[in-house]
């Protein structure tokens, strides 16, 4: 058991903050308040929060907000950000249109 797996731990009540409506995930327009609220709703991992709020799932795939989200979640959980596992990395690493992704050419010789 560590601080993250210990679900008996009390992280306190959600306390509204003046900057809760600040956008954190620029692509999906997810706010700081929504992320903090999600932690208090019981979502303690970055992967869960990503699926719950879509932060980091927009066009840029979390290039800008991943570190910011991690910091906010860690603060809410009273743990070091280093403890939090970042979200899964998967293809495509950059936005690729479906018609391109499906276009598997035969002729690859460079």
């Amino acid at each position: 058991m560590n601080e993250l797996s210990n679900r008996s731990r009390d992280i306190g009540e959600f306390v509204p903050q003046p900057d809760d409506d600040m956008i954190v995930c620029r692509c999906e327009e997810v706010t700081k308040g929504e992320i903090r609220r999600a932690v208090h709703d019981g979502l303690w991992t970055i992967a869960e929060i990503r699926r719950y709020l879509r932060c980091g799932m927009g066009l840029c795939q979390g290039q800008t907000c991943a570190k910011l989200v991690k910091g906010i979640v860690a603060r809410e959980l009273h743990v070091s950000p280093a403890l939090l596992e970042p979200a899964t990395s998967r293809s495509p690493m950059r936005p690729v249109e479906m018609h391109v992704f499906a276009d598997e050419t035969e002729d690859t010789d460079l």
Partner: protein
Amino acid sequence: MAGRIAQHPILGVQSENKKIVTFRYDGKEMKGYEGEPIAAALKANGVMVHRYTMKQHKPRGIFCAIGRCTDCVMVVDGEPNVRTCMTPLVEGMDVRTQYGVSDKPFSEQ
């Protein structure tokens, strides 16, 4: 052209040997250099807002300039979500402000 560095103390005249092309921004005629990113041409023409966001309808512009953040996307030649900082400018291009994922203002969507 306004917004351009006419002469740079280290890089000299950066526009040397570049071909000027005409493109349209929201229907308005503008000039830029062929092959430079659309975003650079818009910046040189004083355009700050590239799109308005889907949920909150907030303005966005150039943020990373290297194709990572996707904040500078616009509707280019009818195609939405085109990263203007990575897409080279060509003669006659049609560049439009993106509202959500459309080139129509929210009131008309």
